[in-house]
């Protein structure tokens, strides 16, 4: 009897204990592991998201892409090239060290190193100076209208901790393990408990987070598992071993929605998938000896644009999970022009007429370079485009290959060895200038990195240089509009669509989560049941 009582008491104590620290473990999975924990080393979507769970930035980007103060509380522009930021006081890193201006200065020096892949976010910054412990001044090299948009990519590390561990250098696989890549110490809402490469990343909430009172998540432990195989990932969600997976393969969306405990969340992504043409060579690679490059003629490019049925691609190839587009940037990107976003009309007759007018009534032969493991259904899209072009007399050969080979072939590594190619692009700064500089222009330092067809237009080059230094928002938007108009009229590229995100969520364990258009999970938004 006494034993029974003790036993009961034990049980009720256990129940109470459970109630007090109810474990809410959030388990999620995507295709690949993070590349590393060093905030300044890799520039890759899922890795950046993991970093932002762990590291603080001066400014945080909310799921709706708007900006909110993080380690900076307020900021003002003193003149065209000087910004003053007030830093948050009383913030500590995960190891207990206090945060102050010296950490920002140190992080800037570290992230601006040549070996840092994240350096792109800071290229416009000349120097950062500390006014006092909690005030800094950022000097830009010239007027920089999008400085604030780049700051969510500026990760703040702890100077003392990094120096203790001799981790200043950002080392990319140069024969030495980078301490910061396997150990993390940030000011963010989550701290890394364990990372077993290709196996799992385990995070726990950081109780000493500066914004702990306004915490929006209720996760007590988060486990991230990379699972490359689509079927395995879906099965693990169905069996309840995972709470969230992404991406859900398009063909499994209905199957998952049919399960009472699972919901598939869909929304547009920020990446725009497009086709481009070689507009640089005097003779097309596929037409040796002809001395001609048809793509130099705007009528031929227009013909291609009108021959491709973007809505058929959306319907058939993407099973409805895409948004056909007429612009090279997605809604939500700074400089997006709603009224210009209509895709080129599908009109094979007009395409034929344009080709005849340009002197290619009998068409010509061209190779389409396409990745087969980079974007959703990338190869299938290219395969669908071929018969569409055949209808207007263009004979297209498909060259689909793995991304690392594809990007080398069409990129600078092989001197843009392509005539006709597929590419997708998300501007890292969420601003149109990034697209203009990387994709639509060639003239200027660091410009045209992925302008694989070497498309160029004198006026557009000029506009881009202006946009880079125009600070007034309305004026700048007008310039972007003009630039996009030129590109659209000249068919510099043929935008196809923004692919859709598809996340599978277990509704019996997850109360709510916000799907960000950059296709990854910000743990701040996860609420468990």
């Amino acid at each position, binding site marked *: 009897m006494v034993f029974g009582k003790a036993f009961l008491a034990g049980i009720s104590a256990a129940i109470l204990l459970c109630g007090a620290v109810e474990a809410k473990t959030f388990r999620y999975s995507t295709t690949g592991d993070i590349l590393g924990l060093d905030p300044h080393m890799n520039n890759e979507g899922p890795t950046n998201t993991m970093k932002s769970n762990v590291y603080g930035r001066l400014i945080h980007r909310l799921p709706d892409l708007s900006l909110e103060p993080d380690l900076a509380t307020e900021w003002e522009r003193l003149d065209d090239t000087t910004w003053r930021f007030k830093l948050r006081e009383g913030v500590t890193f995960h190891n207990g060290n206090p945060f102050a201006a010296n950490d920002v200065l140190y992080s800037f020096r570290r992230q601006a190193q*040549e070996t840092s892949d994240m350096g792109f976010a800071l290229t416009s910054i000349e120097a950062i100076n500390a006014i006092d412990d909690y005030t800094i001044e950022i000097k830009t090299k010239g007027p920089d209208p999008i400085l604030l948009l780049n700051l969510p990519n500026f990760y703040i590390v702890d100077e003392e901790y990094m120096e203790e561990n001799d981790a200043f250098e950002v080392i990319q696989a140069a024969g030495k393990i980078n301490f910061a890549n396997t150990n993390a110490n940030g000011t963010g809402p989550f701290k890394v408990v364990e990372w077993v490469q290709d196996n799992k990343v385990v995070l726990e909430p950081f109780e000493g987070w500066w914004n702990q009172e306004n915490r929006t998540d209720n996760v007590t432990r988060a486990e991230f598992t990379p699972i490359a195989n689509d079927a395995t990932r879906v099965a693990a969600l169905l069996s309840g*071993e995972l709470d969230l997976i992404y991406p859900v393969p398009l063909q499994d969306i209905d199957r998952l929605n049919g399960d009472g405990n699972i919901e598939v969340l869909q929304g547009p992504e920020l990446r725009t998938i497009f086709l481009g043409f070689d507009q640089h060579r005097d003779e097309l690679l596929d037409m040796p000896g002809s001395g001609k490059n048809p793509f130099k003629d705007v009528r031929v490019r227009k013909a291609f644009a009108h021959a491709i049925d973007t809505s058929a691609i959306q319907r058939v190839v993407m099973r409805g999970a895409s948004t056909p587009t007429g612009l090279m940037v997605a809604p939500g990107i700074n400089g997006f022009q709603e009224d210009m976003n209509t895709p080129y009309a599908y009109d094979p007759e007009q395409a034929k007429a344009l080709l005849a007018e340009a002197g290619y009534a009998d068409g010509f032969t061209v190779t389409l370079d396409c990745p087969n493991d980079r974007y959703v259904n990338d190869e299938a899209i290219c395969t669908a485009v071929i018969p569409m072009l055949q209808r207007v007399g263009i004979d297209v050969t498909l060259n689909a290959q793995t991304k690392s080979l594809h990007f080398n072939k069409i990129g600078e590594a092989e001197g843009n060895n392509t005539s006709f190619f597929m590419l997708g692009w998300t501007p890292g700064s969420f601003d149109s200038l990034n697209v203009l500089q990387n994709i639509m222009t060639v003239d200027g330092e660091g410009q045209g990195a992925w302008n694989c067809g070497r498309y160029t237009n004198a006026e557009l080059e000029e506009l881009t240089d202006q946009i880079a230094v125009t600070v007034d928002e309305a004026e700048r938007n007008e310039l972007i509009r003009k630039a996009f108009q030129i590109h659209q009229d000249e068919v510099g590229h043929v935008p196809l669509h923004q692919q859709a995100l598809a996340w599978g969520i277990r509704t019996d364990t997850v109360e709510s989560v916000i799907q960000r258009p950059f296709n990854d999970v910000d743990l701040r938004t996860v609420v468990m049941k």
Partner: protein
Amino acid sequence: MIAFIIQRLFQAVLVMLVVALISFSLFQFVGDPINNMLGVEATIEQREALRERLGLNAPIPVQFATWVGNAVQGELGKSYRMGKPVAELIAERLPATLELVALSAVIALIVGIPMGVYTGLHRESWLSKFFLAASLIGISIPTFLIGILLILIFGVWLGWLPTFGRQGLVDIGLWQTSFLSLKGWSHIIMPAVTLALFQLTLIMRLVRAEMLEVLRTDYIKFARARGLSNRAVHFGHALKNTLVPVITITGLQIGSLLAFSIITETVFQWPGMGLLIIQAISFVDIPIMSSYLVLIALFFVVINLIVDLLYYAVDPRLRIERTSSTGGA
């Protein structure tokens, strides 16, 4: 005997050098690691600098010679992804794969041999026919499909077993094992069965065929004539004489289990060598790829050596022949 082993080891070195050379020349077609290591926003200068640091600008023969030179000294290079030593990465992953392969080999043997004996002895029974029919499925369905079917049945529908990963590990010194906890077993059983199924059916059919062969021989008839029990005849005499080919095949199959484990590990997200090489391939992590291939070649060579030695243990005739031939020389 020792001369034989030395000769084999010498061959092994040659085999491994050839494997390394072939794999090295193939890697030129896998892609450029730089694209995977740097983001899209990296400049040409950054790309060139990294290429130089990794030694990718050197001609292939030079890269190969450097790699072999280091490998001979036990230095397998550093992974491009994390800068971790390849030897360390492989050591982390090796237990997972070895345990998986060992368990599947055991399953294949302890299920396959009795089934083979049974179907050999009772050719006409309905159970034999069922085993044979079922074994066709094991041979003809590809591994990944079996894995996915098992996941669907035991993981999703019945919910008895976890569908992926390797958990419930217990530390024993430097080795983390799945075999000491129930959770560990629940994770390893499905991948092991998936991997074992093909070998199991192969061993069963092999034992059956050998049994049928052996049971027709004279010494079995004499054994029966001497009035030995069925048990002694079947297991003491018949089964023992079927073992030489079974050992050969099992040995070779353990090699291919290691190789097949790539697929099984991908399906079950089993963090072993197979998953490591798949991830290395998609990342064009050349140091890992070359080390892996050479290591697998080493496994094959070692297994074959062991098989050769086992022959001596099992088959007395070989011992006699060998001694007489060396005696003659």
